[in-house]
């Protein structure tokens, strides 16, 4: 061992007394010095007071839009899957695009509730309930497409390992079968996590309820929760464990969704970058949707003290980071296509950017790579309407990403004789548009009847929850 003294060995510790590091100021997570009772009144008030007029208008509009999906599916089931634009060579079309789009949106909810919980990011508390609700509803929307794409939807249960009259079992070598397990597990665990987190808040509403139906409705749902410390002890442990389980789950779900593509031998799909690239894209799109949903809610219900500018800043920064990762993945795909020296692969990528779907590719790049870069600027992050508009661009861009991946490859595969051009039919378009209505119906019911924010968790990050009574917890 050498005995060379490094600069740090020689540093005089006394100097630490002279330099005064700038104090680190933690911004309060609940602004305006609100007390615990205010939080209860605010969140329960949303559920307890009279239904606002805007809610009814939104609900009726959402129901009308949701009926598009209903009609589209009835038409599809009664006529046949040919009413969608799928045909050779593009047999997947919008169905897979919409599926991946919706499932990706779900990922931000789990990220907020699970990953940020494990990372002890306290700012997640006020937004996690609504984001988890978004996850559950997005997964329900996603499930519609593969379910009806099987054609004879009444046989969809054959996907599950249930004995049937043909004595045929599912085939576990197929990534599509893995997807059945991944997505159904994801939906189930997301619902469990969402519901378990809600139990203490449902109990609060139960205890405040005046009407009989409320007492029964919230009473049954809250399972007799009674705020006892012993309950909290097991609850917190269970919450932490579910967060720990959801984290590998959320990463695996989009990984397996990407296997639907990556395990195929088609140029443009058969790449190892797909799993991380899909996960980053999913989180990116999900955070876009979180902004799209929470910014209007914040102003409609006056939640500015709970969803502060600091929260919006953080969400914007995550969107920026994941958007940049997605941009990196796009360029890396191109690099590998060239570096791999496989002519089919390089054709697939040149075709993506300049071929028959060039317009979709450039919509994708401008929405996903360029628009989030605006979040580098504080002025833009502070401008709530602009943040909302950018979040819409993120949603659009991520839909196009899946469209580009699925269609450019299938429409131009190995033999030019089998090339084709895919266009959706009117049934495709209406069925997809309707899922936004379906999602909104569920989300509106959620904000009307269930606690929008986890009250106990919000209270935990307030100074009043500190048993040592310090002012800045």
């Amino acid at each position: 061992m050498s005995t060379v003294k490094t600069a740090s060995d020689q540093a005089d510790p006394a100097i630490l007394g002279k330099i005064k590091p700038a104090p680190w100021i933690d911004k309060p997570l609940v602004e305006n010095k609100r007390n615990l009772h205010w939080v209860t009144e605010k969140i329960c008030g949303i559920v307890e007071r009279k239904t606002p007029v805007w809610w009814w208008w939104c609900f009726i509009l959402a129901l009308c839009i949701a009926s598009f999906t209903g009609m589209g599916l009835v038409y599809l089931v009664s006529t046949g899957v040919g009413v969608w634009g799928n045909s050779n060579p593009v047999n997947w079309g919008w169905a897979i695009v919409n599926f991946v789009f919706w499932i990706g949106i779900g990922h931000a909810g789990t990220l907020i509730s699970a990953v940020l919980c494990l990372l002890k990011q306290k700012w997640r508390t006020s937004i996690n309930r609504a984001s988890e609700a978004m996850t559950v509803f997005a997964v329900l929307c996603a499930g519609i497409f593969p379910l009806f794409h099987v054609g004879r939807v009444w046989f969809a249960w054959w996907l599950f390992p249930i004995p049937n009259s043909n004595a045929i079992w599912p085939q576990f070598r197929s990534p599509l079968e893995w997807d059945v397990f991944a997505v159904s597990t994801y939906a189930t665990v997301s619902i469990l996590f969402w519901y378990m987190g809600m139990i203490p808040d449902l109990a609060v509403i139960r205890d405040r309820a005046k009407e009989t139906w409320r007492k029964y409705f919230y009473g049954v749902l809250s399972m007799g929760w009674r705020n006892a410390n012993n309950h909290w002890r097991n609850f917190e442990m269970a919450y932490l464990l579910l967060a720990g389980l959801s984290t590998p789950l959320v990463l695996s779900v989009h990984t397996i969704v990407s296997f639907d593509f990556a395990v195929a031998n088609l140029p443009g799909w058969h790449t190892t970058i797909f799993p991380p690239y899909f996960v980053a894209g999913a989180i990116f799109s999900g955070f876009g949707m979180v902004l799209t949903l929470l910014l209007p809610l914040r102003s409609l219900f006056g939640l500015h003290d709970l969803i502060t500018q600091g929260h919006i800043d953080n969400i914007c920064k995550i969107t920026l980071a994941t958007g940049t990762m997605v941009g990196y993945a796009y360029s890396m795909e191109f690099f590998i296509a060239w570096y791999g020296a496989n002519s089919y692969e390089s054709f697939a990528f040149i075709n993506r950017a300049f071929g028959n779907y060039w317009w979709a590719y450039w919509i994708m790049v401008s929405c996903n790579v360029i628009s989030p870069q605006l979040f580098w600027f504080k002025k833009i992050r502070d401008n709530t309407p602009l943040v909302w508009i950018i979040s819409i661009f993120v949603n659009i861009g991520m839909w196009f990403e899946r469209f580009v991946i699925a269609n450019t490859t299938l429409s131009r595969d190995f033999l030019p004789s089998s090339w084709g051009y895919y266009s959706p039919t009117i049934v495709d378009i209406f069925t997809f548009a309707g899922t936004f209505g379906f999602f909104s119906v569920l989300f509106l019911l959620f904000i009307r009847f269930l606690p929008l924010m986890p009250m106990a968790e919000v209270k935990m990050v307030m100074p009043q929850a500190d048993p040592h009574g310090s002012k800045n917890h």
Partner: protein
Amino acid sequence: MDIKYGISATFNSAKDIYEAAGEVRKAGYTNWECFTPMPIHGLDAQMGLGRSKVPCFTLAGGITGFFTGMLIVWYMNEFDYPLIVGGKPYFSPIYPFPVFYELTILFAAFGTLFGMFFLNRLPRHNHPVFEHPNFGRTGDDKFMVVIEVDDPKFDEQETTELLRGLGGKSVSVIREPIE
């Protein structure tokens, strides 16, 4: 008819109940409970409680899930109806790993939730503490200590005085109605 369930005292802050809980434990009570609107950091230690047992249920669920997944794939694709697909083996622990993985998480999650319910003895929609007129406030902004009559150290006068001495407000007896 009703019988006594316990004595309750209300506190106004997390600090007060934290300190009160420590004193109640030191006084030797074993059958008592704190009611708080949110989990209070460090209250378990003050009450002399150990680590929650929920992880045992999670682990049991996870192990069950993993082997259920293996069993399903082996039984269906190797034993009951072997089918050659893509030249891959009938059964292998490698290719269907996503199935084992997902079922591990699924069963572990169910284990966690039901483990939590089991350890908390839920659902239970009737409980004597619900008889307390101000019980609802413990979900809002009040903190409550309840010492049960069943506690071996329970003595109505002594316990009342202890809770009063700790700064407990509206110390009162909770009565449980019986038919």
